[in-house]
């Protein structure tokens, strides 16, 4: 299994697990959960950010070419 597929599978399993949480202890510091959750969603958000940034650059490049074509 490639590294990317493994990461995707782990992420998917993690999110599915979150959808069915066990009963929580009220005294638990929510900071720990936030920390783990952040690390869990990090891969996806990082990938999305890269796609968004490149997509922005492609749009900018095409826009510039289109603008030049108009002149």
């Amino acid at each position: 299994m490639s590294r990317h597929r493994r990461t995707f599978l782990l992420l998917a399993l993690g999110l599915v697990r979150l959808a069915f949480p066990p009963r929580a202890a009220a005294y638990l510091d929510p900071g720990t959960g936030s920390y783990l959750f952040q690390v869990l969603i990090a891969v996806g958000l990082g990938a999305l950010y890269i796609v968004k940034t490149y997509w922005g650059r492609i749009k900018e490049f095409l826009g510039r070419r289109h603008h030049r074509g108009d002149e």
Partner: protein
Amino acid sequence: MSGSPAGGIHAASFRDPSGFVFTRDEVLYRQVNQAYRQHLDLLLSSGLYERLVETGQLIPHEVVDVPPPQPERAYRILKPEPVRFVSYPYEWCFGQLKDAALTTLAIQSAALEHGMSLKDASAYNVQFHRGRPILIDTLSFEAYREGQPWVAYRQFCQHFLAPLALMAHTDVRLGQLLRVYLDGIPLDLASRLLPGRTRLNPGLAMHVHLHARAQQSSTGRRARSGPSSGMGRTALLGLIDSLRSAVEKLTWDPQATPWSDYYQECSYSSQALEHKQQLVRQYLEAIHPRTVWDLGANTGTFSHTATGLGAFAVAFDSDPGAVETCYRACRDARDANLMPLLLDLTNPSPGLGWELAERASFLDRGPADTVLALALVHHLAIANNSPLARIAAFLAKLGDSLIIEWVPRSDPQVQRMLTTREDIFDEYTREAFERAFSRHFRITCHSEVEDTGRILYAMHRPDDSV
């Protein structure tokens, strides 16, 4: 500012080992401790401080030579530029909280570019200064370590994202939950209160709903430290971008609130309104106040009269729609001297937090030079059953001088209030009003507002030398 324990140290300034705020001779200073030395030096040498001050996102400070209250721990004493009126998130309208959230995220993005990160994302670290949100806690930054997640992620979601989502999707009045939960709205509570459709909104599904579940489901687990459990810089930028996008998509428009059409529906003709404005201006010119608190300000019509004369005005109103409208107008006009705030005068902000001193009460933040109480007295006396004597005593605590409008029983607004209730207000007469207010103020002038039967008074507290 609220009470000062030993050495003038501010009562809210005890959590952060990096330093604290103190007051000496009525001037506010910040002691930076040796423990924070490396981070303060990096803030200044990395160019981050200069950049954020230039963009108006961080309060400027001077390094001063003042004896520190705790010399054994001190590294530097800073003198921050003073903020004219300290306000709290539960007094902000939707737009103010949203702008404060976006400013916090913009600061975090800038910090990452300069090798630093925000260690706090508390809404209480943001104030409105010259009309714009600004970070006032210079000690909120720490050196960024590669692989480190955003330690303030949970705080950002609780202080900003959850209340904004509740205000936008459930009810704008839920912003008041911030008054109960000083460390932000618990995410499991926000998740329960939000409508089901918000689970289909990617930003809210992730940062509120799943985040809340993650907090509950991590029972017994411990976060591992070190790069193996960390997140890279790109992932961190992705997280900030995702939060920004979630906040930007949240909107709330002040359409149908009880007071949104006040000036259209109320008993004023345009001529009477103009005359009232002229009288208020004339009285303000005579008093020449530096600070004005406009109580029941609606969208701030008369606060603008005060700022037009060079005063700094705080426009208080209990209607979220009116405050939102006023804030948007001020923001668009880049009005630096008017601060609209949400406040119910019948239940104003109390002292809150540890020893009731972390967040100052409404009264503790006064008095103002002048209080405007226009078209207000009948709401307090009739809608809230407050005796005139109590209203006078309360207003005397708020300001050194007072411009107040007497609304007689014959006024259509008062008559409307009395249609659905028994008239038990025998004491509601002009004579009783003057008698009650004369116990606390010296009435210096009064005039009738044309065509209304209403009387505008200017009064001064006897110890006020105007």
